[in-house]
């Protein structure tokens, strides 16, 4: 195994899956092309079918059935994990998730421990149908928890993404939509040692699954003039922007990175914004009716006049082009965050 130092988000997720399958005999994996030696389109499931051949099932190209079968397995006491090869294909599981799985717990009064994992996101030149960030379609569905791992390691080697996935599989009784990101897979996990220039605090949000919100501030900096919030791969870009803003522009921000997108629980964000009074929400999906819109609405409801200025950054409202330069013009990057923050603080 790789040393902790060089672990990536991908390694961590893979490790989380392996641990879950070692510890939990009820775990069972379904997905397209997940068998070794291929091990899944993004290799998150690599090695699993070799170690646990009876509990790793490769499926036909049938996303709705994959999700629905996972639901049925959960009703009979298994802990299914379904991989949807690309996040874009989650449109095909919408009925199973919304009308079936997310309702089982309440209507049938029974546990429904389903985990559906999928990679969202662009910046790989895959074009209009393999690059989207669609999780907003699954936010606000009663009974469905939406998680997005961050690349912050946490307190032990199975911290961060792998731990979040492990807990969701082994120790959570209602359905989870687990949103990964293609570029985030490649990120090295950040330990506290990597984050020396930051003050890092982690808040556990209420609920029986540990899905922390991480709070970043620049060490020994003057009072922050703005709060930024972002998750998943955008949290990485926001952290980078925050660093540059501090060291190149002398603008200081706080950054909040949630790992649970739904149900919404944003108390630590409200605390930060009550100090800075300005909030920027950054997401990779399109802005309209998105995650950021809900975050801003909730912060505004919580803080009233204490919230003085808000803004959002997200994908342009268009298809995501395949050509790399066109694509990058369409998705929010570090520069966009820096520019927007400077506008918001009047510099």
């Amino acid at each position, binding site marked *: 195994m790789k040393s902790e130092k060089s672990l990536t988000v991908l390694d961590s997720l893979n490790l989380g899956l392996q641990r879950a399958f070692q510890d939990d005999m009820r775990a*069972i994996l379904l997905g397209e092309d997940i068998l070794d030696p291929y091990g899944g389109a993004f290799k998150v499931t690599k090695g699993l079918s070799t170690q646990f051949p*009876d*509990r790793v*099932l490769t*499926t*036909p190209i*049938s996303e*709705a*059935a994959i*999700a*629905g*079968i*996972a*639901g*049925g*397995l*959960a*009703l*009979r*006491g*298994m802990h*299914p994990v379904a991989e949807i090869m690309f996040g874009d294909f989650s449109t095909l599981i919408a*009925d*199973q998730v919304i*009308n*079936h799985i997310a*309702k089982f717990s*309440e*209507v*049938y*009064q*029974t546990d429904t421990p389903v985990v559906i994992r999928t990679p969202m996101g662009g910046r790989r030149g895959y074009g209009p149908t393999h690059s989207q960030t669609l999780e907003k379609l699954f936010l606000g569905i009663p009974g469905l928890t939406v998680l997005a791992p961050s690349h912050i390691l946490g307190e032990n080697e199975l911290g961060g993404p792998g731990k979040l996935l492990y807990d969701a599989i082994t120790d959570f009784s209602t359905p989870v939509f687990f949103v990964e990101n293609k570029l985030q897979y490649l990120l090295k996990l950040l330990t506290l040692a990597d984050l020396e220039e930051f003050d890092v605090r982690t808040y556990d949000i209420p609920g029986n699954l540990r899905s922390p919100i991480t709070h970043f501030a620049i060490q020994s900096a003057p009072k922050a003039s703005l709060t930024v919030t972002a998750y998943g791969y955008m949290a990485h870009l926001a952290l980078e922007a925050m660093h540059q803003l501090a060291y190149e522009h002398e603008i200081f921000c706080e950054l909040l990175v949630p790992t649970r997108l739904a149900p919404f629980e944003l108390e630590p964000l409200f605390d930060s914004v009550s100090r800075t009074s300005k909030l920027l929400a950054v997401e990779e999906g399109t802005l309209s009716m998105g995650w950021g819109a809900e975050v801003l609405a909730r912060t505004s409801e919580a803080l009233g006049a204490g919230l003085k200025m808000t803004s959002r950054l997200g994908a342009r409202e268009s298809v995501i082009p395949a050509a790399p330069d066109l694509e990058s013009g369409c998705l929010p990057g570090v520069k966009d965050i820096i520019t927007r923050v400077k506008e918001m603080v009047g510099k």
Partner: protein
Amino acid sequence: MHKNASMYEKLYTIRQFEILLIEKFPTGIFPGTTHTSLGQEANAVGVLSHLDAGDIVVSNHRGHGHFLAYGGDPRALFAELMGKPSGVCGGIGGSQHLHWRNFYSSGIQGGTLAMASGMALAEKEAGSQNIVVDFMGDGTLGEGIVYECLNIISLWGLPILIVLENNHIAQTTQVEKAVAGSIPERFEAFGLPVEHIDSSDILEISPRAGRLMGEVRAQKEPRVLIIETARLGTHSKGDDTRTPQEIELLWQARDPVAIQGARLLKEERDRINLQVEEKLQSALKYAMENEEAA
């Protein structure tokens, strides 16, 4: 009670439940809507009388008959339809969403076959003797997920009996307007063995269902039972576009209660009718008066 009489009693219980429901609907005690299984009682009883204790039933929007044949309590079903806490699902599910023991139903056409397949896979993984019985209608053959599931059911050899109740109509749409080609061949194309019955007679349905369920259990393989049947009532509360003459002909030819009832002596039939009617009247009264779970 001899076998013919007890079968008749079960059929008549479902019939009488639905009749009371239709009768009382206009009084407003049942909110929302409901689909009744008039004419399809022999499918429910004929199939589900062969269940073992651990077997699983996945039903659909037209599921009262299935629920009662499974052994569900008519008091709890009435209460559920009234939206009461004492109902099968505390009033949350209503007519189309029931869960009691290993009985599950839902109101989304076709999607439940995926749940049923997952349940069958769980039983297979656990190495149990349990099987899954999944009911669906002819109109549901229009849903794409059905074919994703048929493919997987066959590939993975899942222990499931699919019962296709072909009543030749889906809401108002005749099967000829909705289903191209041959229905059995749709299943056979996936390598699923099909048994095809054109009957509303429980004595024809029951043994063949029993044999198929035995095969599913013993061989841990899927089977399909297609039953040509008739919907004698409206789709839901009062929507039917068929002519009264057409429906009258169906009642004359395809009423499973009449078919089985004709095998009993009049006195015996009358006695059973009276008992069932009293039982269901008191179930209805119980459901109306009681808040506690039945």
